[in-house]
């Protein structure tokens, strides 16, 4: 109960902070929208229609959830360092992981806004029919994907706590995840050696659940896989965060100076 409250309040205040910069917000929605538009144009050129087009639209809109996290998660600890708050977070009598997950969750929440904007863009500019077979399951699958992406981002953030140029690696991961996790391209269409990597990434299963709900198939298997993998990431990330923070304490890299 106490943990839920901590996660909830942290998430809410982080979201408040992030949504206060109109400029940053604009870019985080606009950037994936450019790519989604390219995808829409390509499918329209290919005379796609009905389920294929909807699938492309849905997949393209989910790209925004990952965009919002990938580019900022790897830099979040450097930003806290610059604000001078990283030390205060470490000095709090809580496991550091519990403090970091709400941060990436707030980023993924903004990604969810981006998803909605992209879907509306598809509907009103490209006339794509947004008829989803099971709306409730669709929303649930989306929420599960948001959580999975947030935890993936948390893993990314922890892995980059010692490295001040990690943001470059983080932003480089943006497009690979779109491709490998089957957002707009079916995992089956990717080279055989890539597919195991796809299956190990939680967002792949979240995306599959979303596609399934949109097309009226059963998403529960995918949801379970997604949450299961996310739980593994959370575990690994927690252990890693403990190690990383101790390393930072030993090497004095919690502060800027």
């Amino acid at each position: 109960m106490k943990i839920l409250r901590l996660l909830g309040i942290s998430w809410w205040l982080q979201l408040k902070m992030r949504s206060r910069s109109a400029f940053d917000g604009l870019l985080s929605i606009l950037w994936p929208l450019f790519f989604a538009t390219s995808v829409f144009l390509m499918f329209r050129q290919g005379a796609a229609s009905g389920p294929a087009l909807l699938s492309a639209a849905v997949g393209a809109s989910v790209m925004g959830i990952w965009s919002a996290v990938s580019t900022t998660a790897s830099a979040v600890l450097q930003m806290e360092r610059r604000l001078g708050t990283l030390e205060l977070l470490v000095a709090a009598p809580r496991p550091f992981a519990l403090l970091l997950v709400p941060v990436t969750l707030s980023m993924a929440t903004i990604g969810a806004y981006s998803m909605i904007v992209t879907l509306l863009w598809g509907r009103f500019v490209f006339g794509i029919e947004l008829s989803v077979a099971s709306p409730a399951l669709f929303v649930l699958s989306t929420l599960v994907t948001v959580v999975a992406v947030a935890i993936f981002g948390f893993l990314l953030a922890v892995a980059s706590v010692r490295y001040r140029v990690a943001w470059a690696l983080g932003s480089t991961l943006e497009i690979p995840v779109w491709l490998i996790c089957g957002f707009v391209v079916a995992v089956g269409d990717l080279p055989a050696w890539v597919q195991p990597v796809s299956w190990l990434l939680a967002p792949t299963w979240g995306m599959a659940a979303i596609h399934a709900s949109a097309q009226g198939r059963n998403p529960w298997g995918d949801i379970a896989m997604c949450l299961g993998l996310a739980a593994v990431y959370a575990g690994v990330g927690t252990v890693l965060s403990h190690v990383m923070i101790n390393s930072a304490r030993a090497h004095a890299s919690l502060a800027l100076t």
Partner: protein
Amino acid sequence: MSSLRILLFGGLTSYRALFRWMSPWIAIPVFIVQPLFQIMLFVYVGRTAGVGDDRFFLIGNAILNAAIPCLFAMGNTIDGERYQGTLPLLLASPARRIPLFFGRALPVILNGFAVTIICLCVGAAMLDVSLPAETWGPLALAVAVSSFSCTGLGLLMAAVALRVRDVAVLANVVFGLLMIFAGVNVPLVSLPGWVAATAQWLPLTHGIAAARELAMGAGVAGVGAQLGVEAGLGLLYCVLGLGTLFWLEFDSRRKSTLEIS
């Protein structure tokens, strides 16, 4: 100081000074890995949507990614100068301004050029796209011209950056617009009329089209007109950029706003 020396040294030093944080850990992911993945993304989307062929997307996205260094670097240069407080010095320097700016542009153009060539080579190998040896020269020319015109746009953006705060956001938006308008992933004929019309005035549109024709075996003579337009556009943007720079500087001196941080 002769203009040529200013051209070379001014360019190299400011570029390096501002990109001093540019370690291989940043340069390789941003300039090589990311563009390659972008190429792969659109190749696979193209296959899924049943449009274009691998070579189409390879050339379009490879040349588009020349825009990254071109747009960002020019913008960064001016923004960085402003941040360091050396912008007034730059504009007041006794050296003739034009060689100075072209000096700053040269490493940027080379960077854009190098990024595209590497992406083309590696991409072609990965996708098993054939680019016959005789096309390499002409392709390199098309890439060079495209890099130049992008740099011109970058210069215009850099001039605008004197008044606007965040160049990086602007550069990202321009990159996105070019991706949609310049026929990178969708041929102009399949785009709405007004989009295609606007694209004629943007860098990369003609360069990419020319490069695609060259890759299919057309000779340089066949694409000469397009390359000419591309180069001309580049020049136009340079002129507009420099003009804006001088005007803004004059205006800033009047209102003393050049020191805006």
